């Protein structure tokens, strides 16, 4: 990748959590449902690692196996190299922030935060000090004695976080913790979570179906679908070089064109014939094969004169959305194509439907996609 900021993969760091050939199935015989299919991932220490995928992809199942709430049908879960798969949850130095927070309503905020340490048998003074520290960390000092039913959703979220962080777990699991919050609060908590992760240095494993959230917060992301991990990488890799059509579609907006590989064009580059034009695309392919090409809507210039290697297109509609303008276009082979242009007052110009334009793809921005996982 040409992109500069690149978080090193787990290989050259110590791993916190490793799963090897993890399998989880429910039911038996013909009714067997494979929730996790041969999942092997390696999560590094101090990493903010996100499991991303649509509902039912197995991301929560994987989280629950790591927490110990369910046990794998097959495979290993290693915590710092030791197999923890047979351990019950209360023997794992791993804590969870639940989607619905699961706060103990019969206890105060402070008692909730102190619960894990009390169960671990910490001395009272140490618990009191740590609770005070956690209350400060999540900025909840004033509400320590409140019942958890008497505080707002955002505050409950902070208490759940503090409660899970307090016993100094080696890994913190977060199960869609922001999904119950409204948009503005969610944005705030994204920043807050990232801050907490950096300050505490604890490995975070975060589950979400929100790709924007995943891109904004994660060091690395594992994209999951139908019980399998399709791709693991940092946000830029996942966005810029998705391995297949599913990942490309799931993360961000995408134009995916059908094409045919004509010839090599240097290392990792190919001449590809799409929609009546030859363009250069990057990835892995064999000469002569049918292939799919991914082009992100923002990686395109719209030109008014015919240009070599630019795709001719017809304007269908134009939508002004404030920071951007979205152009709906039709290519020569009838395929739909979306372009997103940044707006600024001097560049702003309206295009009429039916007008002819040429689309020049930014250098190295056409990606070849592998065969789709089914």
């Amino acid at each position: 990748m040409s992109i500069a900021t690149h978080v090193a993969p787990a290989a050259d760091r110590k791993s916190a959590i490793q799963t090897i050939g993890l399998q989880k199935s429910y039911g038996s015989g013909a009714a067997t449902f494979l929730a996790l299919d041969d999942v092997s991932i390696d999560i590094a220490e101090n990493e903010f690692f996100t499991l991303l995928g649509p509902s039912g992809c197995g991301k929560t199942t994987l989280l629950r196996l790591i927490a110990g709430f369910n046990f794998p049908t097959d495979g290993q879960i290693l915590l710092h190299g030791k197999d923890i798969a047979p351990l019950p949850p209360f023997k794992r130095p791993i804590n969870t922030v639940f989607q619905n927070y699961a706060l103990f309503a019969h206890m105060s905020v402070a008692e909730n935060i102190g619960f894990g340490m009390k169960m671990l048998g910490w001395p009272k003074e140490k618990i009191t000090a740590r609770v005070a520290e956690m209350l400060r960390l999540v900025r909840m000092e004033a509400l320590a004695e409140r019942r958890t039913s008497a505080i707002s959703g955002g505050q409950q979220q902070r208490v759940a976080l503090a409660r899970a962080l307090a016993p100094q777990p080696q890994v913190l699991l977060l199960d869609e913790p922001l999904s119950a919050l409204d948009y503005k609060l969610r944005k705030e908590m994204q920043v807050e979570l990232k801050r907490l992760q950096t300050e505490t240095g604890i490995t975070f494993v975060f589950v979400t179906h929100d790709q924007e959230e995943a891109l904004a917060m994660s060091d690395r992301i594992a994209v999951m679908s139908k019980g399998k991990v399709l791709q693991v990488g940092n946000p830029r890799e996942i966005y810029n070089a998705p391995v297949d059509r599913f990942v490309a579609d799931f993360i961000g907006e995408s134009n995916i064109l059908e094409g045919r590989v004509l010839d090599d064009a240097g290392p990792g580059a190919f001449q590809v014939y799409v929609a009546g034009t030859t363009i250069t695309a990057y990835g892995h392919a064999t000469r002569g094969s049918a292939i799919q090409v991914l082009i992100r809507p923002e990686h395109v210039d719209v030109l008014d004169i015919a240009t070599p290697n630019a795709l001719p297109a017809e304007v269908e509609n134009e939508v002004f959305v404030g920071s951007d303008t979205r152009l709906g276009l039709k290519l020569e082979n009838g395929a739909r194509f979306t372009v997103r242009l940044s707006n600024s007052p001097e560049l702003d110009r309206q295009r009429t439907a039916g007008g002819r334009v040429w689309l020049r793809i930014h250098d190295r921005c056409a990606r070849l996609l592998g065969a789709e996982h089914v």
Partner: protein
Amino acid sequence: MATKAKAFDLKAQPGFSAIARIAVVSLYLPIIILVVFSFNATSSLGVWGGFSFGWFVMAWHNDLIINAALFSLFLATVAGVFATIMATMAAIAMTRSDAYRGQTISYALINQPLIVPEIVTAISLLIVFAAVKSATGYSGTGYLVIAHTAFCIPFAYLPIRARLEGMDLNLETAAADLYADPWKTFVHVTLPRLGPGIVAGFMLAFVVSLDDVVITDLVKSGGQETLPTFMLGQIRRDMTPEVNAAATMLLIPSILLVTAVHLINRKK
């Protein structure tokens, strides 16, 4: 609720208030008459002869009544505690385990005393205990405690189970996640949340035990009298409003406890 009431309001149906009045009167009039005549100055059970606390004073000084009342309270407490403990264990086993073969049957078996006619239970217990009695020679209160515990269990079980089923299972998962083993989870999370259900279960069991006549009468050994069986014995002989006074006193704890159960359940 409001929209539902608009769609179909039972209270607006013709005859509703008349039926309701007849039901309330026929349920409570006999009890009211009983209470009123416990304050009768004469020994008549049907003719009002003026107001008096005389029968209450007399009942209060009647050692037989007092002993029977104390025995009733003792029996209800012991059987109530045993029944509540067993009902709690049964309810947890049935709501916190994976589905197992015979789960439905166990549910039916626990609730069996609610379905089987009391006289049938009473006679079966009588026969079994008679055999035990002749084999061991033991004729203490143990039989009554066992019998009362048995028929009190479903009354204690139902509110406890309802409470367990309404509980968020995530709370127990969260406790386990925070290093609480199953026993600590039960003590620190399940039990505090279950408390009101257990109290309600115990109170219902207590009242049911306190009020029982049929099983007690058949199972008890000579000389053992609960307040209800003592009163049953009295009315076979020369009946005076003293029995009314005793009955009125028996009503008070029942009403108080049932009201308390209602309030506890409402407060959730």
